[in-house]
């Protein structure tokens, strides 16, 4: 009895230590790579090479802007604000950690191609944990819904969660505008180094659109 107790207590200590230092367990393939490969498959024959697109063309019809995001299994729900780029070149993240931002230069959720990017604080000064802190508990297959300004909803299914070094986020494919339509949820991830800019990683959760 006593030995079991000691073991449990020691295990508890170890578990605490691990939770504090480690990243959440990631899963799923790197969607960007898979998508890039599919997108860059060479055309049959010696057709024209991909190049900046043409001028003078009619734009595709506007896609309604997103208004809120939900992950029902985690009881996660957050209103969405459109956000842009700060003078330092980083995405503006809503100050209120109960709200999330849609990077307005990424495709609107429901657009035909590319990664629709949603960002949110994992924690904020004086405001505790953010709504996206729950992303550490997502599982493959979890349903995600994005409600839009016109009252419609776009459905997604989570396929991967990756921990990406902050300086590797730009190249991770999270901001691609072509290829498979996906929803990419981005927050911060451990470790947190107070003297080295805080969080060292981003948590990148990818969900693919579910056909209706």
């Amino acid at each position, binding site marked *: 009895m006593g030995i079991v107790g*000691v073991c449990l207590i020691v295990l508890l*200590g170890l578990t605490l230590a691990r939770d504090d*230092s480690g990243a959440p367990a990631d899963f799923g393939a790197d969607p960007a790579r898979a998508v890039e490969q599919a997108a860059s498959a060479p055309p049959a024959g010696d057709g024209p090479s991909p190049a900046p697109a043409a001028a003078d063309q009619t734009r595709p019809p506007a896609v309604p802007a997103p208004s809120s995001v939900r992950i029902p299994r985690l009881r996660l729900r957050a209103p969405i604000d459109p956000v842009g780029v700060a003078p330092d070149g980083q*995405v503006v993240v809503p100050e209120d950690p109960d709200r999330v931002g849609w990077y307005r*230069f990424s495709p609107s959720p429901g657009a035909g191609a590319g990664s629709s990017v949603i960002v949110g604080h994992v924690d904020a000064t004086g405001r505790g944990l953010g709504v996206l802190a729950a992303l550490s508990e997502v599982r493959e297959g979890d349903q995600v819904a994005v409600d839009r300004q016109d009252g419609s909803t776009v459905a997604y299914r989570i396929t991967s969660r990756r921990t990406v070094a*902050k300086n590797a*986020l730009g190249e991770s494919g999270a*901001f691609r505008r072509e290829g498979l339509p996906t929803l990419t949820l981005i927050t911060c991830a451990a470790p947190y180094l107070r003297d080295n800019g805080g*969080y060292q990683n*981003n948590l990148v959760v990818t969900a693919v659109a579910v056909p209706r």
Partner: protein
Amino acid sequence: MTSRSAGAAMALGTAALLTLASGAPALAAPQADEATVSVLHAVPGLTVDVYAGDKELLPDFAPGTLTDPLKLPAGSYDIKVFKDGEGPKGTPAIEKTVQVPAGANATLVAHLTADGKPALDAFVNDTSMVPAGKARLTVRHVAAAPAVDVRAGGTPVFKGLENPREAKAEVAPGSISADVVLAGTDTVAIGPATLDLAEGSNTIVYAWGSAADKNLALKTQTITGMHSAPSGVPAGETGQAAGVNRTAQIGALSAGALLALGGAALLLRRRTDAG
């Protein structure tokens, strides 16, 4: 003629060019030896036929028409512009040898000089990456008009632009109301016109026509796909989500250790009692 059919016509012309360059490895040319070329007709009132050498490239090319971009083998092109139906034996209205460098994205512009004479110029389009959250705006003065200022929402963005020069800048994306005034004045020569500047793209605006003939106008060309990723997503502040701060972690570990020690002590005592 629509832009599309002009593009198709040019494609035919290109095919002819390729055939002409027999023996040259043009057909198997790798991408690096190609250039992307669009053609803009900015000479008012003159429908023309455009020739490369003695091959017709663009028949019945109407003023204000911009072709779709085309892949052409890099090299030197002897471009002749004839009044509709007068080529290729007659005297061209414009003739110029144009260098098309490998890998370049260029727009060939038939236009008027500042004093109203037909001219041909190749402008290289800037297709370098645009910083995240910005739009590139390029303005080209190809009109028979003196130096101009280009304004957005009434504020000069480019000043003293002369034919056949261009000016460019990276600006906030979105809709702007642009007009063109005589340099240093508030005398509006063109516009205002609404320009939709898309993030990560290069919107190229041509001021063309003739001030004397009162047909100055704007023509817009858009090149997309130069967007870049933002430099980061700063989405955490306190470290709370990483299992609070270091002190608390050590505290938790210490508590665990203390409990373990306590447990061990208890165990030891029980053993002693039993023995």
